[in-house]
């Protein structure tokens, strides 16, 4: 990228991509926003099931997971605000950033779809999340390590729940198998974004704060393939690499989600709730 283009991109509110992306600013702030936004957006999508799930136990479980993720997001964004040092708290970051300032993976912002789509998405993320958090608990950043330790307990439960559903649905009826395979085919390439590292990740690894994303790919695939085999599902042969979320380049879905999520604080500037 030429310098002029990089400046134009920054001026438009989009972080420049490439190996040094985000480093010029505050990589730790950037890093914490990525971690927090994944959880905020995924928690939002899960919360959409409350009252509409296939069985009452899942109304409860999915609201519970939504609560876990929003709780993790609140802790991470609070820390991000402190690290940034500009007086923004977790609510300022959640409610007063625009779409192109969100740093979540594209996977988590996709609409909730049917129950198979929700569970496959959840499982792909949860399997990644456990591996990531297992490394983050060893972070040299003590507060981050503490947040990761609490989140890891939750994530281990999440992955068991979503993994069991993927197996149940994959190895259930003809219809459930068809729906689950379709969800997997749709979502598989989005998982490639988990493992893409850029300058922010490099800086965080160098400081002993963050984790080496590409190194998670192999263990993730082993775990996921084992589950998918039990579920009698076929691992898609989809070479596409999805990217953009970490740099604020999102799908069309996030804008709608944020319009809904942010409406009250944006409509009543300065109000306390």
């Amino acid at each position, binding site marked *: 990228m030429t310098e002029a283009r990089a400046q134009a991109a920054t001026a438009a509110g989009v972080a420049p991509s490439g190996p040094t992306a985000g480093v010029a600013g505050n990589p730790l702030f950037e890093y914490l926003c990525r971690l927090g936004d994944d959880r905020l957006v995924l928690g939002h999508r899960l919360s959409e099931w409350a009252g509409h799930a296939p*069985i009452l136990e899942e109304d409860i479980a999915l609201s519970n997971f939504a609560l876990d993720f929003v709780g993790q997001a609140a802790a991470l964004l609070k820390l991000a605000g402190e690290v940034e040092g500009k007086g923004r708290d977790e609510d300022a970051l959640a409610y007063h950033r625009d779409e192109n300032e969100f740093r979540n993976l594209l996977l988590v912002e996709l609409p909730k779809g049917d129950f198979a789509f929700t569970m496959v998405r959840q499982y792909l993320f949860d399997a990644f999340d456990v591996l990531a958090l297992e490394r983050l608990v060893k972070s040299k950043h003590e507060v981050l390590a503490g947040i990761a330790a609490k989140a890891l307990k939750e994530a281990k439960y999440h992955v068991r729940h979503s993994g069991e559903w993927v197996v149940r649905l994959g190895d259930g009826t003809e219809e459930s198998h068809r729906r689950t395979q379709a969800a997997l085919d749709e979502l598989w390439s989005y998982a490639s974004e988990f493992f893409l590292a850029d300058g922010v990740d490099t800086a965080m690894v160098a400081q002993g704060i963050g984790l080496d994303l590409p190194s998670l790919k192999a263990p993730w695939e082993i775990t996921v393939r084992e589950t998918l085999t039990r579920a009698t599902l076929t691992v898609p042969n989809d070479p596409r690499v999805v990217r953009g979320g970490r740099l604020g380049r999102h799908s069309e879905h996030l804008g709608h989600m944020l319009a809904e999520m942010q409406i009250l604080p944006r409509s009543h500037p300065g109000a306390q709730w």
Partner: protein
Amino acid sequence: MTVAAAEDPVKLAEFEARLERGETIEPKDWMPEKYRKQLVRMMSQHAHSEVVGMLPEGNWITRAPSLRRKMVLLAKVQDEGGHGLYIYCGTETLGVGREELIEQLLTGKAKYSSIFNYPTLTWADIGVIGWLVDGAAIVNQTMLAKTSYGPYARAMIRICKEENFHKRQGYEICTVMAKGTPAQRAMVQDAVNRWWWPSLMMFGPSDATSPNSAELMRWRVKRETNDALRQRFVNLTIPQAQAIGLSVPDPDLRYNAETENWEFGPIDWSEFQAVIAGNGPCNRERMAARRKAHADGAWVREAAEVHAEKQAARAREHAA
């Protein structure tokens, strides 16, 4: 001939003597068929209300104005699902399963609390539901915690504890909004105006016209009358409204120093009857949402069953 009259008179006398002594009735004890039916009716209505009640509040989860409020609301809606599940399990002790009861809800045969047929139009409604609707539920459920049927009484003790948190968070939302911007104050007063009378109707018809009251009282399923509970709720709530500068939409409201009651104006029971009959503002939406969730989830429930059968068959093969 009433059902009660058809019961074995000796057993019935023993049953009523036990109640007289203040004993609780447990699942394996003998009970009149009418007692069992009344309990199934009340408990299933309660469970259905928890489940349908997830909808009006769920309407604001994605728009909660802060992360803390979002978490509290998620926890509350999750609690409600849990209460529903817990009470459905309670009805199983009376020989009626959840599937059968849900079928009755979806076909319109079973009722749920009419309060959930009103819309949640602004964020203030979430505060007011916690304060007034959960507040009214607590008054009713505190009484039910002393009901004569053991499993229901024990469920109520546990549920009341959580409902107290729900009420507190609701009143806190109202308190913050009542001290907030002019727009927020208007929003919360409007919500109180809309929810006040439906909250009073939650206690059910006046004792004179309540079809089930007398028998429920005699068998100590209910320990106090609808009107007495309603009065207690009003007496508790008016000072809370005054404390945060909100009013209730009742020009006849006045304090009677002699009885120490806040006397309130006449309730429009025609509205209550209309909502019960299915003509409230949201009856159709609520039932449509429940039916859609049930229909959309059919393939999931079927898959879970088929998978469990496959697993069992494999286990048998493995053992053989």
